[in-house]
């Protein structure tokens, strides 16, 4: 029975999403944009993405254009934020750093999501032994600081992006598992999952179509927090020499190298610190607004859009807002409806 390919999760998912997925996406964006903090985070994140992309093909100065005669220069027309200790353009390095940090954030978030969800799946599994063990293991491992993991990893790997990604992804995955577990458990033990199971839904299908959508709000918040923390961790670990290797631009690199000069020219440290702070704020806020926007339970606009498109698809003639808002439909009305429904 297991071997027969039952109508997969994708089938239903695709089915629902056929009602204009783009529209749904734009509603979500609009919902975020409508809020003041949503505007802020969208702008910051879009700018980040744009700068990262642009830096792949263009930076105001080449990263490797070092002018040893003008190190630690003050901001000028050719060097908007001045130069660093090698005489390279700080602005260009910060621009290029944005792509490294973006990469780190994306990889860390992806790893922590995969690892965290795997743990969640184990923790809400129907096998008590698996569920019990994984819960306890998570509770134990979670108390080990990320930096310790990074230190141990940096031992064989040396300073590298992989150290940051693996250490942070591992740690944040544990956190994520712990934080989302109650919501996941609620979904996993819910009546709708039981009835789906009674109808023959597989465990995988339940995970993908019921549990994950239901922990999505918590997940959104947690992942964006992880993203923010990954940016912070990058700067910390790079400063400690176990993060981004030298020669690779990153904000942590800019921060760590300019830290030395704080006494002479404090402004140099200001920029990377400011960027990190602003981006982390944006990421944290993004989690909150994303949760509110993407969750149909919390976002009435999204619900309305879905209802409208469903109503329109179902019966083109009916104006959904004109339809009776059936609350206290009387007994008589039911019988009538019943008959109609039966004949269709």
């Amino acid at each position, binding site marked *: 029975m297991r071997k027969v390919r039952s109508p997969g999760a994708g089938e239903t998912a695709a089915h629902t999403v056929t009602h204009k997925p783009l529209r749904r996406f734009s509603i979500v964006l609009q919902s975020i944009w409508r809020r003041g903090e949503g505007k802020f985070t969208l702008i910051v994140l879009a700018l980040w993405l744009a700068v990262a992309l642009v830096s792949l093909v263009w930076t105001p100065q080449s990263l490797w254009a070092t002018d040893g005669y003008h190190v630690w220069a003050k901001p000028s027309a050719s060097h908007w934020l001045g130069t660093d200790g090698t005489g390279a353009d700080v602005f260009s390095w910060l621009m290029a750093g944005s792509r490294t940090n973006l990469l780190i954030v994306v990889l860390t978030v992806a790893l922590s999501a995969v690892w965290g969800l795997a743990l969640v799946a184990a923790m809400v599994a129907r096998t008590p032994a698996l569920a019990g063990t994984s819960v306890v293991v998570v509770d134990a491992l979670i108390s080990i600081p990320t930096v310790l993991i990074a230190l141990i990893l940096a031992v064989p790997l040396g300073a590298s992006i992989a150290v940051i990604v693996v250490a942070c992804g591992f740690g944040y995955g544990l956190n994520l598992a712990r934080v989302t577990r109650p919501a996941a458990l609620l979904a996993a033990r819910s009546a709708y999952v039981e009835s789906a199971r009674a109808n023959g839904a597989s465990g995988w299908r339940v995970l993908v179509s019921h549990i994950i959508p239901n922990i999505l709000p918590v997940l959104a918040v947690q992942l964006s927090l992880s993203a923010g923390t990954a940016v912070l961790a990058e700067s910390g670990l790079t400063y400690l020499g176990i993060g981004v290797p030298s020669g690779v631009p990153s904000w942590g690199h800019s921060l760590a190298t300019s830290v030395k000069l704080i006494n002479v020219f404090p402004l140099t440290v200001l920029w990377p610190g400011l960027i990190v702070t602003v981006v982390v704020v944006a990421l944290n806020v993004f989690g909150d607004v994303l949760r509110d926007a993407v969750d149909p339970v919390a976002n009435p606009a999204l619900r309305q859009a879905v209802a409208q498109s469903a109503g329109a698809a179902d019966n083109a003639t009916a104006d959904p807002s004109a339809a009776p808002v059936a609350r206290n439909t009387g007994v008589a009305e039911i019988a009538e409806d*019943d008959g109609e429904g039966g004949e269709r």
Partner: protein
Amino acid sequence: MHRGLFDFGRSHASRRQVLFGVSAEVHAGECLAVIGASGSGKTTLTRIMLGLAAADSGNIEYRGEGVGRGSAGSRALRAESAIVFQDPFGSLDPRWTVERSVSEPLWLRRRALGFAADEVEGKAAQALARVGLDPRVFLGRYPCDLSGGQAQRVAIARAIVANPRLILADEPMSAIDVAARVQILETFQSILSGEGSGAVDTATGQPIRPAIIMVSHDLGVVQHIADRILVLREGHVVESGPTDAVLGSPQSDYTRQLIAAASL
């Protein structure tokens, strides 16, 4: 069609036995009501019947076949039954639209029932209409935009959409105002009679008349719809029989207490 539930007990992790030798049976087109105090094991009984929980001893028979782990009988039972849970909102995924929730059993059973993918939406709309909800209005809604009565009706639509032969309804009327209760009962009655269920039993050529097992603590409701009653107390069957007999001339003290308390 015959469905027998013979003699099974169940113990929980806490090592406390919850059900003691409960036997019952229900036939097509018939409603069996299970009543009893809170914690007497009613929900557990329904869960065991559907294989959502396992009994420690005893056996369940469905259409003449034993229902054990992985048996043909259990597959048939799962494929042909539906459940309505006590809590209307709990049984609907809060992040799924009504349409998706109602059509989920259809998707899961499409092959077995043998219809095309493009029929699904129509069937879901039809089921909604049958419980008195306008599909144009409700298909696209999310559970949080529904009132309790509406949610309950959606859950029932979901239960009846795939033409099950057995419906288990666990206190489907709790926390719902009386007007809404009446609507739901009407729906059940029409389903029991086989009216417009839309599906025909291939063996007999008759419309499918499902059996309903309903758990309830509202004796008024029970009297209204049930053909037979099973009274549970602390896991034991204290009394069972036709509705009129049990409510009219109760044999056990406990049943008498229940009736006395309800009928003021």
